[in-house]
């Protein structure tokens, strides 16, 4: 009885609560991955001598650049409610082709541009089938995973193609600028651009809109198919950039590069709190997720465990992350 006469006055406080809850849910994923990242770092700092040394930390950053770059693009893909399983294969194809192009005498800047364009075209083709032919992204990119790696194997015959160590191309993977490895610098630039695009531009807003309610976004006059097409072009191009950086760092292009890379990328994005249902993404979360995946791989090796433990641990972490992701976001997806 006492609450009835003044039903309206009870609204504002209830909504304030909702706002706080909103923030926790919105940032809950980011907060828990930040915590998990710190716990992992502390664990390896205590249990191994080598982890918390400057050379090792810089090494982690250098090695995680391809992961960070592709995970940034994958955040857009997953936020639309899609997935791109072909990223590891595109990485392998562009790594081998950049080595082959350099061997054939193509100038290195042109080789890089060609690889980025190739990645974009692969994304365009896959995106076309997903956006315009309405074939599930999982199917299209699973086929892409197989086909594209097949091309890489076919081109190299399964061998790796060496890159001349004197070529300026390798500086992309090996140079140090202001005490920071060049791949890390590239990753930082990509992440900043991705963060701004995701949070501050119309494109980023429509990526979220497509994932949250594609029909409402379409009715609002947004060309939702083109948005979907573009996120796959982005992930293809990002994978190509990762392939270039990897081959430059290793000094060779191997068709076996990036096996299981898609799992690391998806783990990074999902760990970072981006919802697999779409509509909710966080680039800060993705950065933390990618660094966590990188730290785990590095720390497990330093712990002198068998290197074969890494996929087992990564697999379990993906499972737990996806389980939490579903539990956290299932209710949110209901409204679609």
């Amino acid at each position: 009885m006492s609450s009835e006469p003044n039903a309206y006055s009870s609204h504002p406080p209830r909504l304030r609560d909702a706002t706080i809850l909103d923030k926790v849910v919105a940032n809950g994923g980011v907060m828990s991955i930040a915590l998990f990242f710190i716990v992992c770092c502390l664990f390896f700092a205590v249990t191994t001598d080598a982890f918390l040394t400057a050379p090792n930390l810089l090494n982690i950053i250098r090695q995680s650049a391809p992961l960070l770059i592709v995970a940034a693009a994958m955040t857009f893909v997953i936020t639309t409610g899609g997935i791109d399983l072909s990223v590891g294969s595109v990485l392998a194809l562009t790594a081998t082709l950049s080595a082959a192009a350099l061997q054939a005498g193509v100038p290195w800047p042109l080789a890089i541009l060609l690889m980025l364009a190739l990645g974009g075209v692969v994304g365009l083709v896959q995106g076309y089938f997903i956006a315009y032919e309405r074939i599930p992204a999982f199917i299209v990119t699973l086929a892409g995973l197989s086909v594209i790696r097949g091309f890489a194997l076919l081109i190299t015959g399964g061998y790796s193609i060496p890159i001349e160590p004197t070529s300026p191309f390798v500086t992309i993977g090996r140079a140090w600028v202001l005490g920071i490895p060049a791949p890390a610098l590239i990753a930082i630039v990509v992440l900043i651009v991705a963060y701004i695009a995701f949070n501050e531009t119309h494109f980023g807003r429509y990526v979220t809109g497509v994932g949250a309610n594609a029909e409402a976004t379409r009715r609002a006059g947004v060309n939702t198919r083109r948005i979907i097409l573009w996120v796959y072009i982005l992930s293809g191009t990002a994978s190509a950039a990762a392939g270039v950086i990897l081959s430059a760092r290793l000094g060779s292009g191997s068709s076996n590069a990036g096996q299981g890379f898609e799992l690391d990328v998806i783990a990074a994005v999902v760990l970072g709190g981006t919802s697999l249902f779409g509509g909710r993404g966080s680039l800060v979360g993705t950065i933390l997720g990618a660094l966590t995946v990188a730290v785990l791989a590095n720390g497990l090796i330093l712990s002198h465990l068998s290197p074969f433990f890494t996929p087992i641990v990564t697999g379990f972490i993906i499972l737990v992350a996806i389980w939490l992701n579903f539990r956290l976001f299932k209710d949110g997806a209901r409204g679609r």
Partner: protein
Amino acid sequence: MTDTDVSRVRMTGISKRYGALQSLDNASLNLMPGEVLGLVGDNGAGKSTISKVLSGAVIPDAGTIEIDGRPVSFTSPAEARAARIEMVYQDLALCDTIDVAGNLFLGREPKRRIAGVPMLDKKTMHERARDMLSNLGIVIPDTRMKVENLSGGQRQSIAIGRAASFNPSVLIMDEPTAALAVAEVEAVLELIRTVSKRGVSVILITHRLQDLFLVCDRIQVMYEGRNVAERRIEDTNIEDVVNLIVGRKFTARSAGHNHQERGAPA
């Protein structure tokens, strides 16, 4: 002036068939400027279909539409919007994970340029969203709240507010109060009154007959794709409307007086 005599909307002879089902059969609809028309009928009577024809979402097989006396034929919702016809869709209108201002401006977000690059102008967007909502008397504490955290009534208000912000001359609402708690219905009805006072013609589809008597000027009853009756609100009552909807004399327990004859099929 002649203005007041010309219908805002005149739909005549509208037919639409889905496979074997004649969803609309020579249906018509007339709407005056600033009028609130209640569209009622049993489930499947064709209310949603005729309103979708008007909003450009469904293309009729036959029939003519006139807006302010000029014949039109819409092939897409965009064309209807250009003719200042807006429809509030019940479920499909909002993006849950986007905030209130973002939903109000979805697809037409204000821009600002930083170093030549177009970006969302969130500050302007929130300011204008606050103005829009307060002009319509919609109470939302913070335009940065995500829509998923709003009540059903607030969500419906945002959807109507969004439609109203396109400055429509016709606003169609398909069961805007169906999913609302009783206390929230009044706010939506008040919003309909506010909008219609500004000269917007409103088509309200609802099963809540008591709402009709609070906001409508006129009621049109549909039955199996046809118009069966039309009543000015002051000439009818709930029992009469119920009878017209079910298509027979409904001997309600409370019926204590004579019923009017059912209107002849149009």
